[in-house]
């Protein structure tokens, strides 16, 4: 683990420097994928994108098919229910994240790759509780205040 205080290790013979690299950014979803974010906020609807050539349904939505480079212009509603395909139980609250990140969940909880009904790809979200197994059906718990972000779904819970 990186412990800034530990540098330099040997203060007598070993010099060095501590620093903080700040990387501010703003990421534009683009007009097409913004529709999916806005649907989360305004309609509590999960929109995936469907490749016009191979029919693959991407959730999270993508505007290009990674297999055949087709431009995707169609958004379709998927879920809201889905199946836990892969998961891990989180047993540790990282103090840095708990302090700096919004809407963190207190451990223990489960992180899962969920395949929503109608989608061909899995997407990452948290599932309430730890009693989860492969193949469990889950449904979203929507946040009351939504901001067009994936956290508009607070978590998934067993259905």
């Amino acid at each position, binding site marked *: 683990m990186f412990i800034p205080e530990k540098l330099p290790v040997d203060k007598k013979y070993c010099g060095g420097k501590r620093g903080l690299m700040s*990387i*501010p*950014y703003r990421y*534009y979803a683009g*007009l097409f994928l913004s529709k999916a974010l806005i649907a989360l906020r305004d309609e509590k609807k999960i929109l995936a994108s469907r490749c016009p050539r191979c029919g693959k349904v991407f959730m999270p939505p*993508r*505007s*290009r098919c990674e*297999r055949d*480079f087709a431009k995707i212009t169609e958004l379709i509603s998927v879920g809201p229910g889905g199946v836990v395909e892969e998961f891990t139980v989180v047993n540790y609250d990282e103090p840095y994240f708990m302090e700096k990140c919004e809407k963190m969940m207190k451990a223990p909880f489960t992180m899962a790759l969920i395949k929503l009904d109608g989608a061909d790809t899995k997407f990452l979200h948290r599932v309430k509780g730890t009693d989860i197994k492969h193949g469990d059906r889950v449904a979203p718990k929507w946040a009351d205040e939504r901001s067009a972000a994936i956290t508009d779904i607070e978590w998934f819970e067993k259905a």
Partner: protein
Amino acid sequence: MKKTRNVAIAGVGQTKHRGHREDVNLAELVSEAVEEVLADSMVDLSDIDAIVHGNMELFEGVHQPDMWHVIADGGYGKAGYRITTGGTTGTTLVSAADHLVASGMHDLVLAIGFEKQEEGMTTTGITNMSCPLWDREVQTGAITGTTGVIMMNKFGQKAEEAAAELRVLMATNARKNFKAHLRLDITRKDVLDSRVLAWPLRLLHMCPESNGACAMLFASEEMAKKLPQKKVWMHDHVTIHRQEFFDFAHLEDLNTHGEAARIIYTRNGIVNPIKQIGVFEMYDPSSWWALDWLGKFLFMENGEQIDMVLNGDFAIDGKFPVNPSGGVVSTNPIGATAIIRVAEAALQIRGDADDHQVPRDINLALASGFGGTFWTVLHLLGKDKPNH
């Protein structure tokens, strides 16, 4: 340069370069350029063997953009290479693609340079090129007045007039290029009245921050024969690096532009670049540097390029056209900036530069990249196959 086999430019694609592209995300921006190069070369993506992909490190705050862009460049199942050499990234992409084809490794290689500068804070990337122990806190990138001071000390007021005139020429050219970012209608007075950044460097002398992407397709001679687009041939390229630390006042200890030009001219039998080379797309981060560098690339030790600027010799219809595209001072999506130089040079040879086409046949074109602590990558392209 000894090559195993000849390499042709089989297609060129560019986005429109703009200050704002909130309508697309990073991958969508890149795919616009890829779509255009596929249309231009009339090649199917499945025929492409490898993708060389590059931008500035940390500029958008994305760690592995080449991974993100598999959806944007059709890279699934193909060889992928990521290249990031700072300002020269675009020209290094071209060098790498050229080597990959010339070596016999691949027959069709796609090179893509891009930057979406509105998304990140370029200072984050730029400051981290300097050593944290000695000078990181004061590192600022390319805004320096040193070259201007040296030129004014040497050549007087005339140099300042010429730097401004060169900026006006770039604006005149950019207005003919609908893909250019800044298409300004400015006069010499506007330039000289603009805000001082670091005297005598003024705001209008300096390049903008743009969003855009540029893609080029490189083909082996055998493959190129089967492709329908007009070919442009890769004749030669040179990369000259300098030391790690900055010393802008003593550039003569290793004049990287001059050294690169000397090697290219010597290897390719160029004794009179102005006569033999039809167009030069030069990486001009500021008009002061452009004014100085023209002298370095053309071996003009007494500032003859200053009079040439004031005579209009570098105009599209002049003696030695420079940056008919409008140059870097008009368009600067950094990871794409240098590859745009090569792409524009190729379009000029093909005669496909539309409104900013140089009005005469071009057999040889030169394209330069600049970056780091004065690094140069120089490419020579030709209408005819090189004689190796």
